[in-house]
């Protein structure tokens, strides 16, 4: 079992969700984060001050999958998120040791999906 964490552009969230659903990956956890990456982000201007705060809004996806799903999940994220421009984001993969479905108390790979 793996955990896949993806940091993507907020405005690609819909596309990524669609790509994931198409790849039969339905269970995801989403949150709003700020990211400092390679993307230069000076776009906000307040009373002439260019906002140089370099933390840009991003969406963080957390997806736990069984091993056979890892590649297609990554593929789906890339397909949904890639625009080819700086700031598209990153995907991180971690080992997941155990997973428990609270409702049924099932454990392991059976609990993931």
């Amino acid at each position, binding site marked *: 079992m793996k955990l896949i964490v993806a940091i993507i552009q907020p*405005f690609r969230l*819909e596309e990524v969700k669609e790509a994931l659903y198409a790849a039969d990956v339905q269970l995801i956890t989403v949150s709003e984060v*700020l990211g400092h990456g390679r993307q230069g982000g000076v*776009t*906000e201007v*307040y009373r002439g001050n260019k906002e140089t705060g370099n933390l840009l809004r991003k969406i963080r996806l957390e997806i736990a999958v069984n091993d056979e799903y890892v590649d297609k999940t990554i593929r789906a994220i890339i397909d949904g998120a890639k625009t080819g421009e700086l700031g598209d984001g990153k995907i991180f993969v971690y080992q997941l040791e155990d997973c428990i479905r609270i409702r049924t108390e099932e454990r392991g790979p059976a609990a993931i999906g």
Partner: protein
Amino acid sequence: MINNANNAWVLLSAALILFMTVPALGLFYGGLVKRKNVLSVLMQSFASLIVVSLLWVIVGYSLAFSPTELIPGVIGDFRWFFLNGIAPNDPSPYTVSAPNAPVAHLSFVLFQCMFAVITPAVVSGAVAERMKFSSFLAFSVIWLFVVYIPLAHMAWSRNGLFAKMGLMDYAGGTVVEINSGFSALAAALLLGRRTKLKPVPPHNLTFTLTGAAMLWFGWFGFNAGSGLAADGLASSAVLMTNTAAAAAALVWAGLDWFLQKKPTILGAASGAVAGLVVITPAAGFVSLPGALLLGFAAGAVCYVFVVVIKNKLGYDDSLDAFGVHGIAGVLGTVGTGLFAAPFITRPFGMNNGNGFTGLFFGNPSALGVQVLATFTAMLWAFAGTFVIFLVLKKTMGLRVTPKEEAIGLDITQHNERAYTVIE
């Protein structure tokens, strides 16, 4: 001689209409859109205030209300260009129930300015979340002259086409409501749907309810200020306004409860606005039963339009400018022809040739004028806006790019974001 009591009343009514445009309408609309578009919506109302305020005092007022005309019955001339010759203590050439106690001419200029300001702001509800700011700005300037001013002249100026026929439009059923509503429809059709159109929850319903409540508050001035006197007719107009708003809100929230299982606060607020719209042309003409029935009708009919029909037809009137203002505007303007009660206007010695009396009080002819004006306003607004949008589409373009739409209009149109994420 200017009557200071009436003058104070109209000045404060004008202030209330300003308050309706921003922050009220801005918050009402702004709360309904996605977080990334709230400023763009607020900015449309604010821009309307800024641009129309200037154009109005320079030339708009003159074209709309001058009794000497470029096109008889349809548009005035440049007599009051730059408010030329209007001294501060000149009485208003326009009065309603108090011909001997007029307000200052400049108060009338201001009061009418605020009507001209809020009308395009209402239209902006139909174009939210996808229209270029520059194009909206161009639209609101052209539309002021091509659509709004002639309609205002026809309905309200001394020599206006419908004014002369005895049209009863107390506070803008045709000029403001039908006008903005059907303009909104044309705008929504030509602009097309939002790219990822699916129901998205309003980003801040507290703002929306705050805005709706402020609209209700401001509408007292909007409707009752239109009598240009703080007399008993104003009192009646305020009370009928309040009643119709409550009646329509009750019906809408009730239908929600009945059909969708829960009474929603957005439903109550939407209903209230529908009730405020429907009573707009009728406020100074109808008595309690009329106000109640118009309110109930508006709640029910607008509900059907917004909740059922719009979703069936599939045009994207983002914030239901058409479904609420257009539909209730028609109901109210026609309904005034039914419910106008001589009991209300007679004590003031008012007369428009047909005694301000509706069908149900024995005067079928009034209805004819109301229906005629209603249809004219519908057509005028729809056609005028359609053409303006078509021209803008061919020239400067109407929509932001799909990517800009996805990123949000606040940052792409204004380089700003409404809210920070962490402190």
